[in-house]
């Protein structure tokens, strides 16, 4: 429903047939809740440029905590103007209100238009007489000590918004001065307090239509009659009770950002900016002895698209050069997916997850240790660990942390599960391994790490294992015996020597998965020198009449 429809007297909730009867020429479009939601998310993303703390006020409102942010934009009024002007340029109609509390800002933004125009606690802007379809609402946010927060609310009906704003730069912006909530709220309808419709109706029946009618009533009877919710909403709006904002995105512990009057588009410039920001971030983290485990760069494109690029690290990092390198690697890999378009007008670097990181003594370099003879004795050199973890981070940044793995032995006798590839970035912590064991094999018994259980002149396990055992045609001289020859990948191999079988039975609790067939493993050497690990699936005669053969791995 757009403004024009609103002016004609149509209301949400009206039957379509009634509306059509009034205005046969009405254009009707299906409401797309999901698309509205996406738009709201996109706008919320975009609003990130003003403050990191943004809450959603579905279906069509946003709450921004602008505590301590407004001065960066020249004050609250200027910030609202800037925000609304930019939204208008995108074809969105929005209304903003700034107040000490979320409740008050909500009320003023959504219900304030008509009532507030005369007593004018507003700044400079004139408000259009009609509200945007009952959909454009707004609310404000609140911070306990420092008052003042702003809330723009996009109107998710672009036609309506475009229309209104094409008419001229009229911005719906209301600023409630600190402490003036009561005054600002008084003339508003009771519904502005975010009450349930039934409560509003019940209040109206008693003639309590405005907030002013409620404010001075005794609290106890009010609560008894209409429920605690009413009193709480009233308190929240007036700032007697705290109301936290649930942020959409995690609020980072450390943020550094840079804005550009003219958008930048070259990768080189972006990387240089990230390096500068990393230096600021690093200095801030060093003061509090923190290091980042998860970093995010947000690139705000001039046409209001936001790219967020995250990089995780294995150990806390605060070294600017390292952070810059990580993002350089990540960006090369992302490549075209991050299209600068007309350029980025803001870059923000944030540390999303931080960990305590003790200061490291500089100068204890590898060369120094080598001289003192420390390294020969098999001492673990701290520098080595740090260097390797940096390498792992960089490879992980470029290829994804899941691709850089360490093999960790698992306690099972089934060959393909005997080892798990875990991300290497977590470091070599034994407690992690224990936990993984517990998750993967809750019923397992602890066994010492692999020692060759069989005494053999060559290793009993292959160096390469096929993720999916490859079927081979094999001929054995006796049904239970080793293969005499086998055909693998269309080549016939004559077996020169074989050892086995090593009988490996599947776990009984896998019965239902149907993988119950026992395997007889043979290590074979062919006449050509191929050393392979073959198995026969199923015990002949007992489990299956025709066992199949597979090649599972290759020996060194």
């Amino acid at each position: 429903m757009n403004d024009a429809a609103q002016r004609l007297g149509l209301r949400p909730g009206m039957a379509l047939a009634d509306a059509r009867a009034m205005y046969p020429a009405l254009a009707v479009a299906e409401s797309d809740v999901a698309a509205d939601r996406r738009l709201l998310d996109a706008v919320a993303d975009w609003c990130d440029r003003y403050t990191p703390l943004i809450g959603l006020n579905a279906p069509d409102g946003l709450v921004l905590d602008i505590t301590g942010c407004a001065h960066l934009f020249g004050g609250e009024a200027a910030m609202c103007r800037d925000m609304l002007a930019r939204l208008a340029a995108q074809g969105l109609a929005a209304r903003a209100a700034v107040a000490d509390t979320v409740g008050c800002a909500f009320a003023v933004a959504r219900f304030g238009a008509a009532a507030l125009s005369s007593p004018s606690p507003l700044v400079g802007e004139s408000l259009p007489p009609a509200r945007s379809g009952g959909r454009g609402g707004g609310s404000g946010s609140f911070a306990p000590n420092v008052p003042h927060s702003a809330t723009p609310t996009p109107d998710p009906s672009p036609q309506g918004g475009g229309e209104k704003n094409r008419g001229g730069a009229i911005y719906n912006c209301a600023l409630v001065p600190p402490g003036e909530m009561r005054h600002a709220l008084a003339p508003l309808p009771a519904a502005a307090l975010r009450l349930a419709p039934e409560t509003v109706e019940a209040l109206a029946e008693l003639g309590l239509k405005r907030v002013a009618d409620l404010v001075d009533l005794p609290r106890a009877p009010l609560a008894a009659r209409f429920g605690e919710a009413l009193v709480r909403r009233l308190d929240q709006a007036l700032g007697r009770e705290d109301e936290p904002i649930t942020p959409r995105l995690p609020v980072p512990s450390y943020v550094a950002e840079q804005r550009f009057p003219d958008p930048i588009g070259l990768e080189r410039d972006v990387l240089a900016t990230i390096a500068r920001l990393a230096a600021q971030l690093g200095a801030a983290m060093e003061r509090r002895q923190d290091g980042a485990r998860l970093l995010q760069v947000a690139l705000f494109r001039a046409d209001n698209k936001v790219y967020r690029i995250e990089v995780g690290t294995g150990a806390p990092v605060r070294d600017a050069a390292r952070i810059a390198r990580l993002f350089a690697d990540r960006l090369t890999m992302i490549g075209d997916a991050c299209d600068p378009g007309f350029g980025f007008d803001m870059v923000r670097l944030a540390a999303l997850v931080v960990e305590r990181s003790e200061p490291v003594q500089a100068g204890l370099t590898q060369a120094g240790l080598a001289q003192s003879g420390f390294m020969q004795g098999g001492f673990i050199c701290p520098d080595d660990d740090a260097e390797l973890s940096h390498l792992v981070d960089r490879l992980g940044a470029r290829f994804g942390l899941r691709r850089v793995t360490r093999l960790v032995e698992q306690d099972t006798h089934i060959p393909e599960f005997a080892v798990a590839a875990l991300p290497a970035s977590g470091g070599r912590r034994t407690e992690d391994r224990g936990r993984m064991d517990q998750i993967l094999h809750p019923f397992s018994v602890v066994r010492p790490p692999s020692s060759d259980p069989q005494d053999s002149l060559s290793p009993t396990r292959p160096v390469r294992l096929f993720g999916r055992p490859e079927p081979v045609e094999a001929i054995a001289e006796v049904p239970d015996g080793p293969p005499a020859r086998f055909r693998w990948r269309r080549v016939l191999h004559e077996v020169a020597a074989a050892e086995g079988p090593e009988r490996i039975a599947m776990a009984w609790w896998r019965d239902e998965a149907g993988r119950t067939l026992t395997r007889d493993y043979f290590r074979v050497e062919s006449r050509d020198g191929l050393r392979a690990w073959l198995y026969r699936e199923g015990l002949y005669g007992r489990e299956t009449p025709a066992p199949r053969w597979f090649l599972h791995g290759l020996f060194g």
Partner: protein
Amino acid sequence: MSAESSETLRALRRAVADLTASLPDEGGRLISLGIASIDGALAGGLACGALHEIDPAVPLHGGAAAGFAVALATLALRERGQAVWIQPDFVAIETGALYGPGLDLMGLPMGRLVILRVPRPRDVLWAMEEALKCRAAGVVVAELASEEADLTATRRLALAAREGGGLGLVLHHDALSRSQPTTATTRWEVASARGERDRFGGLGPTTFALSLVKNRCGRTGQWRLSWDHHERAFVAAASSLPVAPAARDGSPARVRAG
């Protein structure tokens, strides 16, 4: 040839090697293979801070080539350091992924190995260069199955290896990649050889037929070596074959066939 001209020749050789970065730094760490004739040919041992290529003689012997790389890595990591093994995705599918227990038995503990799987073959070169520059990586093994490793690329790798001081091993998979000239210090062709049977007729030690086809530090040659995974050392094949202790023979886990 007079002493003077041989001196000139050596200086020229050195200059060329410097340009191509194919000779390891003098005085760098050398990894002895434990076989006098091979160490002699390599002027002391396999040079760290340099690039070495390992080719399977025929694709069938890819497993043996990998085994030889694991053996060299084991020797290089005797004292300290970590191995980084870089594998493109399709190589892992085609020839099998690295299997920890098998590496462990060969002598390369899982705790000292970082495995990187890259999506595209050309990522291998970038990753290997980065890994070689890292001083903590004692050995970097990269599997290549394409012709990407040309002279320029391998020169970059050799310089990176010199910077980091680690042992760079390039494991080839097909003939195409082998025909290219590279700046590697040595190139080994590895075939799997049939080991001696143990005295019960069972499988003998892992045996390689090695052919050193390129060697910037000395002469080429051919050897047959076995890898003793208990001692973690090479032994010349068919000379002094260790004998399995008889006491273990009767254990039920060791049923012999064939």
